[in-house]
């Protein structure tokens, strides 16, 4: 299974749909052009592709899923814009972040605009899917959004309060809400809902989505530390600069000596601008010493294995086909991507 090719295939269809939702209109310069910026920077269209593949697994056509898929990508872009502001990130998809280009005010507003565009895209399903199913999709989108902001609150709260006594399960709980819901669980649920029209059994996607999403996030965080800057598209080690509570940091936190803890506390307490390259290098070196990256890699593998298991359980009665094959290949792909 060539996952990249399959994603590219769906990506083209989704981009066509996005053209409609992101068509140039006034005010262009201060709203719609910046709002469309991330979408046109490329990206794998992972989330909308999951949605389409799941929908097709359960008998829907690509047309029936395309608006929902576009909506998912737009909501994702909205979250990215806000995330970048909240995380004080400098780079996204190889270029400056939106707020770095246009200032925080316009960036936040463009993010809000993207949220609305995303909801509109979901609403556009009414014609084809009917109001009831559309309503169900919107309800689920609300739930996803709630889970996501709650997860983001956890993450930001830990940084703000400089939480140092975190455990692996704290991390997984945060990732479930902050990442998995909108990256994997919601796209899968949306697809299943469109395919089956049955809102009562969506939680079956929870396990697969959670393990897949968690493996994805850990892999993403690893890439942040050791990826190829040209291919990764975000600043390397940006997470260290931001003091982001990644699994690697949580692992290190559990093992620090008193002296290391003091230094780490001071580092994390300081505003980002005052953190020094020396400290970042030290942190990275400590993580290497304690095998934190090794640990995270191993955990990502384990979670991907669990995702595989859950997939086989939930999809065993779905007839074989390219979409099932794509979903089946996701856990391995998540680990191999660079």
């Amino acid at each position, binding site marked *: 299974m060539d996952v990249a090719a399959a994603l590219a295939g769906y990506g083209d269809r989704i981009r066509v749909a996005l053209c409609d939702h992101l068509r140039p209109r006034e005010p262009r310069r201060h709203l719609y052009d910046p709002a469309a910026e991330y979408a046109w920077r490329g990206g794998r269209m992972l989330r909308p592709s999951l949605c389409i593949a799941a929908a097709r697994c359960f008998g829907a056509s690509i047309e029936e899923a395309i608006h929902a898929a576009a909506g998912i990508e737009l909501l994702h872009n909205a979250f990215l814009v806000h995330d970048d502001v909240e995380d004080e990130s400098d780079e996204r998809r190889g270029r400056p972040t939106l707020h770095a280009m246009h200032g925080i005010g316009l960036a936040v507003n463009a993010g809000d605009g993207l949220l609305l565009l995303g909801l509109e895209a979901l609403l556009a399903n*009414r014609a084809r899917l*009917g109001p009831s199913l559309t*309503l169900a999709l919107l309800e689920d989108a609300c739930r996803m959004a709630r889970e996501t902001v709650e997860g983001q609150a956890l993450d930001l709260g830990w940084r703000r309060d400089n939480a140092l006594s975190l455990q*692996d399960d704290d991390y*997984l709980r945060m990732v479930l809400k902050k990442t998995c819901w909108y990256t994997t669980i919601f796209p899968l649920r949306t697809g299943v809902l469109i395919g089956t029209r049955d809102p009562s059994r969506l*939680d079956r996607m*929870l396990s697969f989505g959670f393990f897949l999403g*968690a493996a994805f996030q850990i892999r993403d965080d690893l890439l942040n530390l050791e990826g190829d800057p040209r291919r990764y598209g975000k600043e390397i080690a940006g997470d260290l600069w931001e003091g982001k509570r990644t699994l690697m940091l949580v692992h290190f936190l559990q093992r620090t000596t008193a002296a290391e803890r003091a230094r780490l506390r001071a580092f994390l307490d300081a505003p980002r601008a005052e953190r020094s390259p020396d400290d970042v290098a030290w942190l990275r070196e400590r993580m290497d010493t304690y095998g934190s990256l090794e640990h995270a890699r191993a955990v990502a593998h384990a979670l991907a294995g669990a995702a595989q*298991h859950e997939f086989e359980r939930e999809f065993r009665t779905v007839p074989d086909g390219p979409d099932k094959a794509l979903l089946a290949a996701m856990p391995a792909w998540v680990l191999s991507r660079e």
Partner: protein
Amino acid sequence: MSSSERITRPHPRRSEPIRTFRGTSSEPPAAAAAERPRASVGEAVAHAVDLGYRVLDEYLQQGQRAARGLGLGPDRAEAAVDDLQALATRMARYTSDFLGVWAQFVDVALSTGRLGGAKRNDAPPGPASAPAPTPARAAVAVRVRSPQAAEVAADLAADLAERPLTVQALRGADPTVPPITGVRFEPATAAQAARLHVVVPPEQAPGTYVGVVVDDETGRFAGTVTVTVVGTEG
């Protein structure tokens, strides 16, 4: 004496029984999933998978508690069910349940009037045509072409009779049975009432088929069409 010198208990992988559906299978997935990575990367990772399942279970339980708090009852709180196959067979029922909710939704949202049309074709196989039974509200005539006895019910919003409508494929309970696609809506004109043309193929399996009517221009829901194929001996 310090703990490093003492002999201590190993850390248990879990300390509660698995009472979930998952865990009661002969191959507990928590263990099964843990086994593969465990062999290669050791204890910590098996622990991670275990943690993953625990976080998930805890999360599901929270949801169920919340649902109970809202008075939804535990059966509304969605939970994983073993049998995906059952989904397919339940689809038709869900569709028709849905249509009911849908119609209410439309009522509330659009505040439109209603108009109904129904036709039971008990005649011997062959083309048939009759006006809707209640002339006062009748704006739809149903024409059925079916070699088998078939019952047709249409539920359409009144103010839509003159609009171009599309009837989507009518689907049955069994997903492997092809849907009825030969249903066409002919809008009312000054000269004649709206017409619904239903063509049931000779090989169509007996059963109830439900489809949605959509306004071509506005994309709004316009109603439903239900065809019950009774079978040739009827």
